């Protein structure tokens, strides 16, 4: 019953999206103007219905209604409740429903609160939003109905991929989706602005909070995803250049560029066409990412749906939306008038540099991600990994980071290096000193070397905009920028340190054996069986000590066996200190001991141990970047609110004075 209610709500929401598109487009014409008033309420209602539909899905998952096919395939009555709920979006259909729900909610929210733009632009924007939603509603209803019934209902479900049975999953996909779909708003704004030819500072100011919001979620989602992969997969890495990771990185790169160019447009009325273009590109990247993941065309840990029909469906949607938006851009780009001018050495100049570099990195990642597809079409099977992505990405990242140190100090319009030069002496010296120290140390690969040397100077340079300012009166947006940029430096330091100084040990240890990993002494105390709600495991008790006289602490990595579906995962154990992280994974019993005629007490266990100096800074930096975004968002929204309140006050006073 609840499943049918969800399906009905979904159909109604789709119908409302259609109405929103028609009313929004007709509202732009002279004869259909009366329809315009309907658009905002319809958008709000569409969001509410989407939410209702999604709530129904969560409900049927939480009670494990096995007569629904999706649940029989992906859930299990023995699962803990939190994973039952999280399981509702841990599969193809559910995640697509989450996608349209978030999209509907974002559209509804925008319809409720966005009052700054001319009404015509808003109509075009909401119509654009509805147009995009419609495609995804069609995809859900015709190609991946989440509420499909199964008759007869099976006695038990298939369970959820144990790798995904982790709290990280409960947060990772929804945050990413909020980001992906939030960018659809930027896309719709860009379409609305192009249709009504209203590309200017007002458009940038209206769009910026949405882009910021989406970007914050993307940042958190990517950071969380990276950490999840780090501790859950037990491979000790934090970024694998997996297609799905790239699928989340590409929209982030585009959104970062968009954020900066929207800043230029809002403040200086320059980079008009470029900003609109980026608005289109950012969401296109989200859709390409979704296509790559959902079509299963690139197989990876995340690709749980391998279905060519769905792939074709999404590919057609992609062609319609991206192709349509680019055509519109091509038609209207020439009518977007030229913005204000600026000198090459200026804040705008630095931001243009940032944008071009970000776009180049985006191109590099996109090429590398799609290349295996192209190669396979030509008959060669290839995979593209870190040997391509790392150096090619760094080629553009390093210059961008250098400019990041300088850019925020420059003035708008025109500036000279001689003015800011003196302030950059200290960071410059730090970079040089760092480089020398690292050279003396020796044995560090080029990329970590560059990263380490740059990061310290960069960290100092990013704080310089606060120099000579009254910190209490510094606007929140400036704080946000400084903290986000500082986060980049922190994260860079963590990444470089992890690559340069990690120590790895792989041993087969008998109980009682002590292994040295960097500064740690790790003693295997015992290996014992333990049991959880739907798994059994072997758990190693490791007694670890930092240095010669540190306190002895315990680490308990597990090797888990799930039975629904049958699969083994390794639960790594982490120990975090201020200067790094100890990472332990328990493998299996080392083969061969029995064959050699040794008893059980003598069996050896495979242990994989890492000491990763300053590794946690990678994710702390990521969170700082998101925090910076959040502060900027609060600052911007608060300023807007103050302006609205002030306007209302003026109106009120005028009324009272009888004017």
């Amino acid at each position, binding site marked *: 019953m609840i499943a049918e209610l969800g399906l009905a709500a979904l159909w109604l929401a789709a119908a409302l999206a259609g109405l929103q598109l028609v009313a929004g487009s007709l509202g732009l014409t002279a004869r259909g103007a009366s329809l315009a008033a309907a658009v905002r309420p319809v958008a709000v209602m569409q969001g509410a219905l989407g939410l209702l539909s999604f709530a129904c899905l969560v409900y049927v998952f939480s009670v494990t209604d096995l007569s629904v096919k999706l649940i029989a395939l992906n859930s299990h009555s023995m699962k803990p409740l939190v994973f039952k709920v999280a399981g509702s979006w841990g599969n193809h259909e559910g995640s697509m429903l989450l996608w349209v729900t978030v999209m509907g909610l974002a559209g509804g929210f925008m319809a409720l609160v966005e009052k700054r733009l001319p009404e015509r632009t808003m109509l075009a924007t909401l119509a654009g939003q509805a147009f995009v939603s419609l495609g995804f509603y069609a995809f859900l209803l015709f190609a991946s109905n989440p509420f499909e019934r199964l008759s007869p209902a099976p006695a038990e479900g298939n369970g959820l991929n144990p790798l995904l049975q982790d709290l990280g999953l409960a947060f990772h996909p929804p945050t990413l989706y909020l980001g992906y779909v939030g960018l659809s708003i930027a896309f719709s704004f860009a379409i609305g602005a192009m249709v009504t030819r209203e590309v200017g500072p007002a458009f940038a100011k209206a769009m910026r909070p949405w882009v910021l919001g989406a970007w914050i979620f993307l940042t958190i989602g990517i950071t969380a995803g990276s950490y999840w992969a780090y501790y859950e997969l037990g491979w000790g890495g934090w970024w694998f250049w997996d297609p799905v990771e790239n699928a989340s990185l590409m929209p982030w790169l585009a959104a970062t560029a968009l954020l900066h160019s929207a800043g230029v447009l809002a403040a200086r009325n320059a980079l008009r066409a470029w900003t609109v273009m980026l608005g289109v590109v950012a969401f296109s990247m989200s859709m390409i990412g979704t296509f790559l993941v959902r079509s299963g065309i690139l197989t990876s840990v995340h690709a749980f749906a391998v279905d060519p029909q769905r792939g074709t469906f999404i590919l057609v949607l992609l062609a319609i939306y991206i192709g349509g938006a680019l055509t519109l851009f091509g038609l209207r780009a020439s009518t977007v008038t030229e913005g204000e001018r600026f000198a090459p050495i200026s804040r705008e100049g630095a931001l243009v540099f940032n944008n071009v570099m970000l776009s180049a990195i985006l191109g590099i990642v996109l090429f590398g991600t799609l290349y295996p597809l192209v190669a396979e079409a030509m008959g060669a*099977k290839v995979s593209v990994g870190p040997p391509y992505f790392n150096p090619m990405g760094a080629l553009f990242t390093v210059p961008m980071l250098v400019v990041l140190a300088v850019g925020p100090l420059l003035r708008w319009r025109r500036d000279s290096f001689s003015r800011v030069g003196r302030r950059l002496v200290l960071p410059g010296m730090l970079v040089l000193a760092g480089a020398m120290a690292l050279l003396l140390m020796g044995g560090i690969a080029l990329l970590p070397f560059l990263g380490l040397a740059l990061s310290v100077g960069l960290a100092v340079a990013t704080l310089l905009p606060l120099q000579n300012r009254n910190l209490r009166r510094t606007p929140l947006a400036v704080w946000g920028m400084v903290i986000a940029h500082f986060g980049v430096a922190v994260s860079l330091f963590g990444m470089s340190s992890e690559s340069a100084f990690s120590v790895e040990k792989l041993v087969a240890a008998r109980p009682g054996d002590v292994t040295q990993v960097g500064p740690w002494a790790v003693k295997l105390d015992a290996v014992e069986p333990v049991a959880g709600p739907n798994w059994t495991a072997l758990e190693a008790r490791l007694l670890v000590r930092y240095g010669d006289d540190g306190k002895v602490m315990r680490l308990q990595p597990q090797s888990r066996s799930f039975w629904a579906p049958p699969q083994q995962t390794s639960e790594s154990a982490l120990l975090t200190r201020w200067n790094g992280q100890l990472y332990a994974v328990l493998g299996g019993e080392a083969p061969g001991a029995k064959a050699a005629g040794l008893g059980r007490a003598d069996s050896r266990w495979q242990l994989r141990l890492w000491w990763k100096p300053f590794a946690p800074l990678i994710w702390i930096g990521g969170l700082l970047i998101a925090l910076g975004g959040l502060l900027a968002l609060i600052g911007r929204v608060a300023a807007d609110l103050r302006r609205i309140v002030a306007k209302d006050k003026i109106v009120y006073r005028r009324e009272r004075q009888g004017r």
Partner: protein
Amino acid sequence: MAGVLKAKHQRLVLLSLALVVLLAAGLLAAWALRNQASYFYVPSEIIAAPPEPDRAVRLGGMVENGSLRTAADGVTIMFAVQDGKARVPVTFKGIVPSLFVEGSGVVAEGRMRADGTFIADNLLAKHDENYVPREMQDMTMEQAEKVVRETK
């Protein structure tokens, strides 16, 4: 400088600069991809035309029955990968995926040494229905059954 440039010109200059950088990025990417993409081989191919020893490649096939041995250190394993036509000895140091067993499919990432041994940095075994290395998916369709029958 900008004062001299007319508005139209600045736009043009910016546009062409951006295009040049993006084009350069594209060309660089194409060049690097040719050099850095790691190709997939099955044993008969890798023996017929071995890649250079410093080149990262992937080797896929069936783990030959009875070939799996563990070295004295307990963490280095040696086995042979075969496709029914040829066999390649593989050395791997690490924790093997749980579904890595003799007679099942595997994709090894690593390098082919000049002496004909494959040094694997990473092993991908068939995890579950939802996560199959792409090459192995085809392999199970085309060859696996035959290979399994032959090895049994």
